């Protein structure tokens, strides 16, 4: 009984926290400068939301001038705290690299990919609420 009550309270706390707008991701649209015509498309996939969260758009990995970037364009996401952009081996972040804070819940945005990352292994793009370990959305790139 005690464990059930405790578990319920924790779940409610997490759900409430992930919908907390006090420390939410910026919602002002961004428009990062990136010219796809001068870059090589390596992988891409469609973004989709998880559970009650909405994430839409396209995630693409490009190589440009010897560097690789992740482009989210178009992009829109539900808001939440501590949202990160992960490249992961699985859709549940079994092994991942954090590309940084989600810059905005909407708009074209570019993230640098470290040279050490094997993008054939890290084929999932995740929009991830790190503090509360909740996936907002994902894309499997190919």
């Amino acid at each position, binding site marked *: 009984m005690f464990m059930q009550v405790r578990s319920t309270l924790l779940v409610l706390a997490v759900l409430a926290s992930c919908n907390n707008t006090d420390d939410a991701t910026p919602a002002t649209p961004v428009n990062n400068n990136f010219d796809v015509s001068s870059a090589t498309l390596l992988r891409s996939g469609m973004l989709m939301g998880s559970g009650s969260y909405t994430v839409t758009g396209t995630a693409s990995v490009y190589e440009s001038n010897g560097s690789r970037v992740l482009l989210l364009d178009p992009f829109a996401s539900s808001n939440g705290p501590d949202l990160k952009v992960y490249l992961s081996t699985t859709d549940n*972040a079994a092994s991942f*690299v954090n590309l940084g804070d989600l810059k905005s819940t909407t708009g074209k945005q570019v993230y640098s990919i470290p040279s050490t990352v094997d993008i054939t292994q890290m084929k999932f793009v995740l929009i991830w609420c790190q503090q509360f*370990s909740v996936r907002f959305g994902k894309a499997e790139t190919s």
Partner: protein
Amino acid sequence: MRANVTVILSILCIGAAMAQEENTTNYGSLTGAYGEREGSASVEFFHNWKLGKSRKFLIGIGGRFTSYFGSDHYFSSAPASLASDDTKSDSLLLPSSNIFALNAAINLAYRITDKFDVGFDIDAIGLSFGGKQDGFYLNGNMGQATMASPTSFNVLLIGNNDRGTLNSEFYIRYFFKENLGIKVAYQYLFTEYTTDTAVQQVPEANDRFRHKAQMVSLGITKVF
């Protein structure tokens, strides 16, 4: 470690020797603590010796059972060689944590008036148990899923050399009856998990991660 245990035992022996008139009192308390996305419940019992001419100083030994539960907390590298340097410390993020700890503990108190006392108690040595939890090991911008269990053995040492789950409180207590009091405390609770494998490898292999919970607690004390 041996030196610390010796010091603690010496203090207790001195206390016992000074209590030649067997002027002792026993306290039992139930305490609940609350913090940000975490809490604890504890049951403790202390056998105290009254010291000094006025017998206002109390020193006691006893035991405490603590149940800690929390969600979405970062645990940092626990070994002293890593914990003392932020550049060497990695993190374990646990969506859910629940540890039960049974420890021998020490109590020090001063009876301000017949109605009030202030004091400090701290766990010294004991055991922890609890279920295995899913979590994420974070090293800079890299991470991986992992599993962790409460560190089994608890021992109070100096600085960051502590190990396991150890509870401590600074408290003030008001006796509203001769043998009943309420206690308000600042609770500082170390909790520690050990990962299934040594997920941290740099600068040294490590599988122990600690969270320091700072909470406000409220308890009721019965004098026996």
